[in-house]
């Protein structure tokens, strides 16, 4: 078995131009995303302030600028949350079977979270993951930032739990490879994502945040699953 085992995701061959993701590359991406968002906001706030200072009667234009400054980060966050929204056919007849298999793959607590929210909680080296049908959220250690990844299988006829299981198995095989293959949809504060997340899914985010916070505390080692090799 040792000779036939592969430690890297096969799918990496489809994206040879991408640098392998790591904690530092994700942190750098997060900083870049925040800087870009701040730039976008300032780009509209400054004209609003300048216009009002020059001529108060231009306030309708200024209000339009302020609206843009508010909407743009919201749109980014909305796109990020979109990765864990239910997508595609429900395939209810097969879903029970698929749910059974996914339940077998998950531990007790993660199974309960998944059944209640549709998101599979999976601690890893990079943080705590919430895996959905067509994407995943990664809460970095500390639980303040979330990265949203758009990734999935192309087989639309699969029941939702099978789609989650596909991503979960890929994630467990090669976490950094998974983060490399996936497209990044958003990076920012957890509260931005929480506001846009369906109420039924918020308990999963809360549970992931608790686990992510513990990754920075004295219990850090205990919070990391065997998948992480206990080295996070």
């Amino acid at each position, binding site marked *: *078995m040792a000779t036939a085992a*592969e430690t890297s995701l096969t799918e990496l061959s489809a994206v040879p131009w991408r640098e392998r993701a790591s904690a530092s590359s994700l942190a750098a991406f997060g900083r870049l995303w925040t800087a870009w968002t701040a730039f976008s906001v300032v780009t509209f706030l400054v004209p609003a302030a300048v216009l009002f200072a020059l001529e108060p009667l231009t306030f309708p234009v200024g209000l339009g600028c302020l609206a843009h400054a508010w909407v743009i980060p919201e749109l980014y966050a909305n796109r990020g949350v979109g990765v864990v929204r239910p997508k595609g056919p429900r395939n209810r007849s097969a*879903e029970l079977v698929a749910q059974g298999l996914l339940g077998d793959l998950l531990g007790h607590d993660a199974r309960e979270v998944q059944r209640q929210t549709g998101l599979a909680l999976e601690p*890893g080296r990079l943080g705590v993951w919430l895996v959905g049908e067509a994407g995943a959220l990664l809460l970095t250690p500390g639980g303040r930032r979330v990265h949203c990844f758009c990734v999935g299988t192309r087989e639309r006829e699969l029941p939702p739990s099978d789609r989650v299981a596909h991503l979960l198995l*890929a994630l467990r095989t090669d976490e950094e490879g998974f983060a490399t293959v996936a497209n990044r949809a958003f990076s920012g504060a957890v509260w931005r994502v929480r506001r846009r997340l369906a109420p039924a899914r918020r308990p999963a985010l809360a549970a992931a945040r608790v686990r992510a916070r513990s990754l920075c505390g004295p219990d850090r080692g205990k919070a990391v699953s065997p998948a992480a090799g206990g080295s996070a």
Partner: protein
Amino acid sequence: MSRLIRMDHTGHSTLAEWTGKGDAGFEAAVEAFRRELDAGYIGVVPEGEGHATQVTELPAAAELVIMRRPIAGG
């Protein structure tokens, strides 16, 4: 009893079962495994919570081998 399953539109289908390397069922499982690889599936051995190993040959000792489809960024 070891199982080779494929995640598909039915939830999952059991492709083969075997008890050990000398078992006739294992030869059938190897055939089925290769067929699925040729069809573009990827073999994964779940190894408890948090662990999974991608395999290109059917491990006789594995309790469960799951065939999954490739994933891609959306």
